[in-house]
């Protein structure tokens, strides 16, 4: 039943090798996942650089969109991290645009959903986590570890509370990665399942088709929302590291 296997709702997430590359025994092939990451990065670059090419005082539609995305993230960083967050703006902006474009491109039929792979989301979350920790350590030195002992806690409780706080701190990248991964995977699987119903039901397939239309709107919202949530949580973690609470 090879044909049936091919139509499994999960087959859309399979990684295929496009250009086999091997460096020192490590499989570094160019896969469809890599291809769509390259497409996302290219799309962001084109969107921003072509949009800002004319730099009109009264922006056209395209320039407006580019400026809108800039302002959106600039406000997000300012509101959540404060003025010290300004120098992290390029990082946060790049993160947001990459996830947003990867999510949005994935909504086009026959494309590959990069952010539905936990390797990708976890790598992004790890970068955020390591950067936030390094920023905190550089800024506060060893004082940074006071993050693990909330103020006003009796010393007797410290042996219990410190491990709990450390676990909850280490869980940040995991939940960050899982949230993006779970939302995207669930959404795209659901679309595919309803797509299968349309084919199976023939004329009565109009009903699942209507559901797909609604789901597609919802998925578009989720694609944006998850990029937003990932970015805002990055800002909140940065804020914690810079200001310690």
């Amino acid at each position: 039943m090879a044909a049936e296997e091919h139509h499994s709702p999960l087959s859309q997430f399979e990684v295929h090798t496009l250009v086999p590359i091997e460096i020192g025994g490590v499989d570094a092939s160019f896969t469809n996942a890599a291809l769509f990451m390259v497409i996302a990065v290219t799309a962001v670059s084109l969107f921003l650089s072509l949009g800002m090419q004319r730099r009109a005082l009264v922006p056209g539609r395209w320039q407006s969109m580019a400026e809108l995305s800039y302002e959106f993230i600039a406000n997000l960083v300012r509101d959540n991290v404060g003025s010290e967050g300004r120098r992290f703006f390029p990082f946060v902006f790049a993160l947001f645009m990459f996830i947003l474009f990867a999510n949005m491109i994935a909504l086009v039929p026959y494309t590959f959903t990069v952010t539905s792979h936990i390797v990708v989301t976890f790598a992004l979350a790890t970068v955020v986590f390591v950067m936030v920790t390094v920023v905190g350590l550089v800024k506060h030195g060893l004082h940074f570890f006071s993050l693990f002992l909330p103020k006003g806690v009796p010393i007797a409780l410290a042996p219990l509370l410190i491990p709990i706080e450390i676990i909850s701190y280490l869980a940040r990248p995991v939940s960050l990665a899982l949230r993006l991964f779970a939302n995207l995977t669930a959404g795209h699987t659901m679309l595919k399942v309803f797509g299968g119903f349309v084919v199976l039901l023939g004329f009565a397939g109009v009903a699942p088709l209507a559901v797909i239309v609604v789901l597609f709107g919802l998925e578009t919202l989720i694609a944006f929302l998850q990029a937003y949530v990932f970015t805002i949580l990055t800002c909140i973690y940065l804020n914690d590291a810079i200001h310690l609470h």
Partner: protein
Amino acid sequence: MAKGETPPSLDELDRRLAQAREQRAARAGSTRAGLASERRGYGIAVRLAIELASTLAVGVFIGWLLDEWLGTRPWLLVVFFFLGAAAGALNVYRVTQSMMRDADKDDEAAG
């Protein structure tokens, strides 16, 4: 501008500027309320579940690693299971606290 029409005074311009800013702020408020839809129903459930499960998993994983390292299986795993569960509950508590704070803020902005 047509001839004979006097240009608007600075006060007039000020007033119009303030009005435009107010409208803009109101619009910004409404988009924020739209984004907050993640707080509702399904969004909250998924978010809290992921928070709880991932924190617990991290706790168990640390316990398992320490056990492997120190050869104390299964005791640290058990200890860190409970610590992870506590940390998960703590994270869920924090998330709901911040959700409630945001909800209060939105209500104030709306009302």
